[in-house]
C-alpha cells in the first residue's frame, strides 16, 4: 500500500480565490487580463492523451509558450476568426481545489473543472482537471504552468475555440 493515494490539503482561500478569478476572466472573455496572469516563461498545455509525458516530442491539443499564447489571444479578437464568429459563450465551474503534496517547493495546485459552451444553437459539456503551477511575483500569484487534462482528450474532438 506504499503507493496508496494520500488526501491532499484543501487550498487556502487566497489560492482558491486566484484559481476562481482566472476562470472568471476566461468566462468573461477578458483574455488580455487572463494573459496578464502568466509568467514570462509560461507553459500552457492541453495534452492529447492521458499519460503523455510532455508536449515536446508528441502532438498536443495545445502546447503554448508565451509567443503562441500571444498569437492565440490576438486571433480571438480577430473579426475573421470564422470558428468564433459568432463567439462561443462559456461557463466554467472549478472545484476540488487542493494543494500538491510538494506545494511548498513546486507551487502546484490541483483542481477539477466542468465547462459549458454555447455556440451556434448547440450546447457542449466538457470536464477534466487543471494543474496550476503558481509563483509569487509582484506581491501576488502568477501562473508559470497550466495543464488542462480534458476527460475526452483521446477522443475524436470538435473545434475548441476558447482556451480552457
Amino acid at each position: 500500500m506504499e503507493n496508496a493515494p494520500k488526501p491532499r490539503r484543501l487550498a487556502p482561500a487566497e489560492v482558491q480565490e486566484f484559481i476562481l478569478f482566472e476562470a472568471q476572466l476566461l468566462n468573461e472573455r477578458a483574455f488580455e487580463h487572463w494573459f496578464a496572469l502568466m509568467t514570462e516563461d509560461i507553459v500552457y498545455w492541453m495534452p492529447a492523451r492521458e499519460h503523455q509525458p510532455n508536449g515536446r516530442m508528441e502532438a498536443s491539443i495545445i502546447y503554448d509558450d508565451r509567443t503562441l499564447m500571444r498569437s492565440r489571444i490576438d486571433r480571438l479578437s480577430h473579426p475573421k476568426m470564422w470558428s468564433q464568429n459568432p463567439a462561443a459563450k462559456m461557463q466554467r465551474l472549478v472545484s476540488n481545489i487542493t494543494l500538491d503534496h510538494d506545494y511548498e517547493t513546486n507551487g502546484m495546485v490541483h483542481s477539477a473543472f466542468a465547462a459549458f459552451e454555447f455556440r451556434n444553437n448547440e450546447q457542449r459539456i466538457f470536464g477534466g482537471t487543471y494543474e496550476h503551477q503558481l509563483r509569487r511575483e509582484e506581491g501576488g500569484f502568477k501562473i508559470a504552468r497550466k495543464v488542462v487534462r480534458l476527460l475526452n482528450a483521446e477522443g475524436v474532438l470538435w473545434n475548441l475555440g476558447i482556451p480552457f
Partner: protein
Amino acid sequence: MDIAEIASLVGDDRVHARCYTDPAIFELEMERIFRRTWNFACHESQIPKSGDFVTMTIARQPIIVARAPSGEVAAMFNRCSHRGSIVCREESGNAPNFTCPFHGWVFRCNGELAGIPYRESYSPEFLAQTNLGLAPVPRLGRYRGFVFVSLSAEGVPFESYLAPLKVGIDNLLDRAPEGELIADNGLHRYAYKGNWKHQIENGIDEYHPPFSHASTIKDGKQMARAYGSEGFHYTNKNEKSEDVGRSHFDHAEIHGFPYGHSYLTVADRSRVADLKVPSYRELLIKKHGEKRFAEVEEETFITNCVFYPNFILRVNNNIHLRVVRPIAVDRSEVWVWPLRFKGAPDDMSEGIMRYANVHTSVASFVQTDDLEVFERCQEGLNAQAPEWVWLARGLKQEKPGKHPGELVAQGTWETGMRAQFRYWKEMMTQA
C-alpha cells in the same frame, strides 16, 4: 441511381451540389470508390514489433493491421468469424493474439484461427474449414513503410495507383538522416459536420488560405510556424490579395493526375526552412554527399501529396499523415499523425510538433477555421439554387506534365479537385 444520372453530376468546370449532400450518393461512394480503390491504412513505424497492431475503419468497415511474428504486415477485418463481434477494441497496442469477448474464439495476430472453445460440439467437416480465421483484407500494398489496403480483389494495381505520388514519399525518406520516418508521435483527431470531400479537396486548395485563414495574418505575413522559418508573405507586395489578380500561392504549382491524385508544390523556396538548419543540413550532407544533397534540396518542392480518396501526406515543414474517414454524407472524421525524421535533431522534431499543434489540432490557429468553413459549405449546399459548385479556375489552361495524364497548373487553380472528380465520375459510373 442510373449511370447517366450520376455522370450528369460532374461537368468539366462544375459539380452538382448533390455530390456533397445526397445520402444515396454517399452510399455509392462507399461501394464504388472507397471499397474498390486503395486506401492508406497506416505507417509501418506504428507497428514495428511482432504483435503490434493498429485498428481503423475504411469505408466504415472495422479493420486491423498487425505485425505478424514473421515480420509480415497483415490486414484483416476486425470481425469474429463466429458471430461477428469486433475482436479488438483498442486503437493500437501489442497482443500475441486477439480473443473474441463473446465465446472466446482466438485468432493469431496474422488473423489465423488459433482456437475454438469446447470444439467437440462441432463436426470434423466444420472444423476442417480453412476460412474460420479473421477474413483477410483482399489486397495489401506496401511502399517504403506506407501501408495501403484495397477492399476489392480486383481493380487498379497498387503500383499504378501509387506511381504519380511516389516522388513525395521518396523525397521525405531522402530527408530522413537514418532513412526512416517515425509516425508514432501522438495524433490529432477531429470531426466536422460535413462531407469527406471538403477535407480531401482542402489538401490542394491554395486559393483559400488568405481568406479562410485571415485571422493568422498580421501585416501581410503569416505567423512563423515552421522550424527555422521567419514566417512568409501571404500577399503580394503590400497589396491585399483581394485586390490583385494573382495570388502569392500562384507561384506554387498543382499537379493533377489519374486516380484522383494530385500534389501541390511550395510557393517559394524560403518556405522550405528546415533544410537550412545547420545541424540537420550537416547530417544530410554526411548521409548523401554534397552532390546528392544538392539534388535532394532541389527535389524538396512538394507541400502536400493528396492520395485519393482518403490520404493527405504533408511533405514539408509540419510533415504528417492525414487520413479522412467518411462517417455519413454530412459527417467526417480526420486523423492526423505528425511525422518526424529518424535521426534528426530533437529540436527539429519539437519544431514539427509545435507546428502540428497550431495547424492540425482542434484548438489550432488554422484547422479550426477550415472546419468552420467545411460546416458552412455543408449548410450552404442544401440550397436548391444554384445547383452547381464551380471548379473552373484555370480550366484548360494547364500544361501537360511528365507523367501520363498529368496536368500542371498554377497554385490556386482547381486542377486538383477536377482530377478528383474525373476519377470520381470514372469509378461512380461503373456499376
